[in-house]
């Protein structure tokens, strides 16, 4: 029983337990922070992948495959399948309107049926503009509303967007526009948010709305139809209206992909059903060429294992081939895992590497804790001798130090958890602060130091003089006075600095631009923000592990303490 009493007393009285606790805290916090941010990045990447990819994809080469309606119906009948959606995938060009001349970019074009697509992947939630973030944009266009020229592009955009906004849910409207074959004013297109290079992220990771010149504007889409035999035909161009942007979070995708209505792309690529024409005579043969699609995306029902779904779809495809011999050899069926094996393996590799790093870090933490405990034991050797002399057993002494390690471990780990949570959840704010306000902060800190250090130096001299002249004086009162003076000087300095900077904003701007530390550039990286969540799973293993490490770290010193000879310990200086 005396043990607990001694542990608690040692905790309160010495600087050593603070150091030990600090060591545990820092190690716990470090592991959690690194784990959260590294793991967060990987999760964001895989999450983005899963937002983009159906569970199982059935696809053909770029010429596409016929009888997709029949296949689609077959898939939808499978008990394993929740939804399926046809897609046409092609490549082409978009030409964006510019100040002086149009800019043209190569893109991957997906012709989609948004209603069914949204059942297969969360398409609607990847649409970037919704009622609240588009409204401020429309408000900015307001001044153009009453422009004289009826064809002024900004005026047209204003009215288009305003009209859409007034129809209620902006995203749902996007889905409707993308779903209908011939909407007004022109067929719809949804572009990856990074396709338009003017769409830049600022240092906060936000898209600068004013530079976005595409949403609500017409752009030109050009595709190259490929005949069923793989022959390129004359390019097809159409004017389409950008009804929304989409953002998956993966830069490569957001930079290259656009979505248009399935029917539109099908007809532009001449993949619709058509009467067959005899090449030699130029006359219809009386047969029809079936309409084509290039892939079917399939989503499994909840709880159905991916492999089982894969097998069911494959089986269904085999049956379809029996019915339609012209499908033979054209279709491949793959799961999202297979399609992204390289990436997923890289992620797994990364995790393994991180685990290895943690093994090393844990070892360092362990040694650190063991060292601190060793020093505590040294410091307490005489007490150990006393307790042993008073009749405490070896187990009792070991118990004291193990219990000490346990309590320090618990407190340190919990503090570390608190620090990690505070840092990780605010990491983006910290990032912004370092990138944008470090300059002014440095100015204030420098100002305070420039004022405070000389004042403190003078006070030190005064203190020394007072002490000599009034040896029986009241140091507490002097200290209070001096602290007061220092505080007043500091406040005056702060107020002065604030007042000065207020009138010299260019200095503030210059400072912030010159002195800044960008640990992360949201405007250039693939992802627009730093992951800022600590996973409960990570907490669930890191915190107990730190506690265990702390107890293990105290084990060797505890054994050492227990084995001390009481007389030797008493003689220890």
């Amino acid at each position: 029983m005396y043990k607990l009493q001694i542990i608690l007393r040692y905790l309160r009285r010495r600087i050593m337990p603070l150091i030990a606790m600090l060591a545990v805290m820092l190690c716990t916090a470090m592991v959690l922070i690194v784990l959260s941010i590294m793991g967060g990045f990987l999760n964001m990447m895989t999450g983005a992948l899963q937002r983009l990819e159906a569970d199982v994809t059935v696809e053909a080469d770029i010429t596409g495959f016929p009888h997709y309606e029949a296949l689609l119906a077959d898939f939808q009948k499978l008990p394993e399948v929740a939804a399926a959606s046809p897609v046409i995938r092609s490549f082409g060009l978009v030409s964006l309107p510019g100040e002086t001349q149009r800019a043209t970019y190569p893109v991957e074009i997906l012709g989609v049926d948004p209603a069914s697509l949204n059942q297969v992947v969360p398409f609607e939630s990847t649409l970037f503009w919704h009622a609240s973030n588009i409204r401020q944009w429309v408000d900015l266009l307001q001044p153009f509303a009453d422009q004289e020229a009826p064809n002024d592009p900004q005026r047209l955009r204003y009215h288009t967007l305003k009209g859409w906004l007034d129809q209620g849910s902006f995203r749902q409207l996007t889905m409707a526009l993308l779903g209908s074959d011939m909407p007004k004013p022109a067929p719809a297109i949804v572009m990856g948010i990074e396709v338009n290079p003017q769409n830049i992220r600022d240092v906060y990771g936000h898209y600068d709305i004013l530079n976005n010149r595409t949403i609500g504007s017409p752009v030109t889409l050009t595709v190259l139809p490929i005949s069923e035999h793989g022959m390129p035909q004359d390019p097809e161009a159409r004017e389409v209206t950008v009804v929304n942007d989409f953002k998956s979070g993966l830069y490569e995708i957001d930079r290259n992909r656009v979505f248009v209505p399935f029917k539109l792309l099908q007809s532009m690529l001449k993949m619709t059903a058509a009467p067959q024409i005899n090449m030699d005579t130029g006359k219809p043969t009386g047969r029809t060429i079936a309409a084509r699609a290039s892939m079917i995306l399939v989503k499994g029902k909840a709880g159905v294992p991916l492999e089982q779904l894969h097998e069911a779809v494959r089986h269904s495809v085999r049956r379809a081939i029996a019915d339609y011999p012209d499908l033979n050899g054209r279709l491949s069926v793959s799961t999202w895992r297979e399609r992204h094996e390289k990436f997923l393996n890289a992620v797994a590799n990364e995790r393994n590497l991180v685990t290895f790093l943690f093994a090393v870090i844990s070892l360092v933490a362990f040694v650190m804790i063991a060292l601190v405990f060793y020093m505590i034991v040294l410091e307490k050797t005489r007490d150990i001798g006393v307790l042993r002399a008073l009749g405490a057993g070896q187990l009792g002494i070991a118990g004291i130090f193990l219990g000490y390690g346990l309590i320090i471990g618990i407190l340190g780990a919990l503090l570390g958890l608190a620090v990690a949570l505070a840092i990780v959840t605010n990491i983006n704010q910290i990032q912004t602060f370092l990138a944008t306000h470090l300059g002014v902060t440095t100015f204030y800190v420098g100002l305070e130091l420039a004022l405070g250090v000389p004042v403190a130096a003078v006070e030190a001299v005064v203190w020394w003089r007072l002490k000599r002249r009034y040896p029986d004086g009241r140091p507490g009162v002097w200290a209070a006075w001096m602290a007061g003076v220092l505080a007043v000087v500091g406040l005056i300095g702060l107020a002065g600095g604030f007042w000065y900077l207020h009138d010299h904003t260019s200095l503030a701007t210059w400072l912030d631009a010159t002195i800044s530390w960008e640990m992360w550039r949201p405007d250039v990286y693939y992802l627009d923000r730093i992951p800022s969540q600590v996973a409960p799973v990570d907490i669930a293993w890191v915190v107990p592990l730190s506690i265990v490490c702390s107890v293990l770290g105290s084990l060797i010193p505890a054994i050492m303490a227990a084995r001390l000879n009481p007389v030797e310990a008493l003689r220890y200086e």
Partner: protein
Amino acid sequence: MAEARSDILRATGLHKHYRLGGEDLHVLRGVDLAVRHGEWLAILGASGSGKSTLLHLLGGLDRPSRGEVQFTGQSIFAMSNGALDRYRNQQVGFVFQFYHLLPEFSALENVVVSAAITPSTLSWLRMRRQRRQEAAELLARLGLGERLKHRPAKLSGGERQRVALARALINQPAVLLADEPTGNLDAQTGGQILDLLRDLHRQGQTIVMVTHDEKVAVAADRRLHLEAGRLV
């Protein structure tokens, strides 16, 4: 038989070597000693003669190189570790040459710790209040009633030694082993401690006291001299 009963502590052929590097320091060279029940025995000796060493062996703090110590006829170094721990805690009260109080604990707690060592957690929870009360009374009896909450650093040498004495007495030991109890004190405070020991002795406490000071030793019933590693 009657004599065996009255010998509470008996040492036979005690040898103690210290090995310092290659050198062998033969401090005790066959000490024989019998402490009778209720007597006050003083062991005199020059500094470095091995008085503390002998007392440590009697108190079970250290093991002899050769020879044995019997407590009421039982060899203490043949006991299990646990039994020896209990012997130190329950049968022996040790007053050190240099107080050796726990610096983080108040006077009262320093005494209570000694009482708390042997009992199990459960039984301690039951008796804690009473034992604290006893410790406070004991300290009050030694003139420290006003100093219960003070830490050792805030106490004078004499006060510290009295706390150490209270700590040694709290478990009502069969033998009080006092190593130079007055050695670090001025004559007056040393005298106070001696008076306390005298009171204890009158109440029947067996005391073995080590000192290098003849004037202190006269208070005892019997004096032995430790010379060249033997008692004479």
